[in-house]
């Protein structure tokens, strides 16, 4: 059973790579190097700030876009193009397929993020000429970004399990935007009363909490990331992803393939 999940995950990773997803790294590298060089020229004492802010934001956004498009492409496309027919006629359980896809997808993103992280640190080294102690927190920010990808991938798979590729992409992206504002949404829910308040509260708590996973600004200013936050965020991301994936499994279990 587990080996099948592993095979599916590996195949997913291979497909993403051969689908030239990793080429995005080139665009990323260009962007970052350009910024680093530019900032190095201007040098108004905020080089570190800019590089970290820009670099991490780029990692986050590039990654989310990739997660959405590849995630949806890989699952919806399979259902659409019926490559699944010959896979599911084998002793592969449907849930193994979903879970395998999830691991393959997140694996791709982790590898992608790793290369991007190297790029960010190189750019940082270039503009600041040395590493400071506070740069350690950049790793924490990167870790949170990876957690963010976990949730986005899980959501992309969830939506792919029942809607068309386009709608799945739209829903996932919408949840990403709303989730990034989830702290404000909860604040808003707190000061709203009546039916609107209940509705806002429900949405604010069910939407993925991306705002707490975004510590980019903090880290750019050199502020530390509390250990407890790292722990809680990890637990949250894992549980939320598990929730979305089990939802995907439940739906996919009963789906009639066209």
């Amino acid at each position, binding site marked *: 059973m587990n080996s099948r999940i592993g095979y599916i995950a590996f195949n997913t990773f*291979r497909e993403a790579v051969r689908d030239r997803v990793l080429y995005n790294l080139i665009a990323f590298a260009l962007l970052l190097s350009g910024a680093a060089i530019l900032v190095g020229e201007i040098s108004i004492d905020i080089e570190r700030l800019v590089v970290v802010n820009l670099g991490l934001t780029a990692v986050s956004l590039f990654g989310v876009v990739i997660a959405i498009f590849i995630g949806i492409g890989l699952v919806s496309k399979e259902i659409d193009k019926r490559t699944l027919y*010959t896979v599911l006629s084998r002793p592969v359980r449907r849930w193994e397929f979903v879970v395998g896809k999830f691991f393959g997808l997140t694996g791709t993103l982790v590898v992608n993020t790793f290369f991007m992280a190297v790029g960010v640190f190189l750019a940082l080294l270039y503009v600041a000429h040395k590493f400071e102690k506070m740069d350690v927190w950049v790793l924490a920010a990167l870790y949170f970004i990876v957690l963010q990808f976990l949730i986005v991938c899980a959501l992309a798979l969830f939506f792919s399990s029942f809607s068309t590729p386009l709608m799945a992409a739209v829903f996932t992206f919408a949840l990403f935007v709303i989730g990034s504002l989830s702290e404000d949404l909860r604040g808003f829910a707190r000061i709203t009363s009546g039916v609107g308040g209940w509705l806002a509260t429900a949405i604010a708590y069910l939407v993925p909490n991306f705002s707490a996973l975004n510590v980019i600004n903090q880290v750019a200013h050199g502020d530390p990331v509390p250990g407890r936050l790292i722990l809680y965020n990890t637990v949250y991301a894992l549980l939320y992803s598990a929730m979305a994936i089990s939802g995907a499994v439940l739906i996919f279990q009963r789906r009639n393939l066209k």
Partner: protein
Amino acid sequence: MAAIEILDLEKSYLVGFWRKRPKLALRPLRLTIEDGEVFGFLGPNGAGKTTTLKLLMGLVFPTAGSARILGMEMNDPRVKSEIGFLPEQPYFYDHLSARELLNYYAQLSGVPAKGRSARVEQMLERVGLRDAAGVQLRKFSKGMLQRVGLAQAILHDPKLVFLDEPMSGLDPMGRREVRDLIQQLRSEGKTVFFSTHILSDAEALCDRVGVIHQGELRGVGAVAELTSERQAKIEIIFCATTVPPGLTSLGAEARVSGDMVNAVLPEEQQDAALEVLRRERIKLISLTPVRRSLEEYYIQKLRPVEARKNEIPKADDQKDKDDDRENDARIEASRKGVGA
């Protein structure tokens, strides 16, 4: 033990945008496929052949009924290791090469790692793709994809193989190869269930056929029985530019093409016909008995049915035997009545 037992398997869809109405894609189907036989599932496009296969594969869920495959419930995952499936117009992972795809499928089918690559090579050889094994599937032609499809269906040595339109889109050479493969599978003792709308293939390959139309099983029968001589006829081909009147009076149906005539007459007129040709000094080319083709049976089954019955359609070869008995009895009675 029956390889496949289908018990009142039914599938209906809801169609329409606002008011969804049920559309019956497959009426309750009852069918048994015996172990070791080659069964042809015949029917026009949209008859329900692919729906049946998808139901058996667990790709689509029935609205009623069930099936047992190799003695196990059709949803049982253990079934999947014993069956192979080639879908119609298959799509595979484009980015993989043939070898990689088969290897991946072998992994998923639980082929042990030890002999896996050897088995893959063997399969590639068997379907004639050894030279193209390293090429990405996106570059494959239709025929090559079909071969890959066959390879993945049999690579884990399943007992039962399902093929949906295996000859579609193949050139005559390809079709010949597929036919040979199916023969081989049969000689290996495997059960083959394939759907097609090409009757000549079915006639050549199948032990039994079933005809399905508009979601309903119209008839099942052994090929040998269905194509046995029932209406004894003979076909005479001879050199002539017109049909000799003597033959027409014998009740011949004739067709002229160029300087040859092709005439079909009842068997008992054989001697009289030959006499006509001899008298007219017409050159005889050939004389062969006409066997009823599967086509006739097929077309007959496709005709609309008056009343919709849900009973098990009696096996048509059985029905034919019964009809024969009836007819013989009638003839016997009339002969007795008329007098010797």
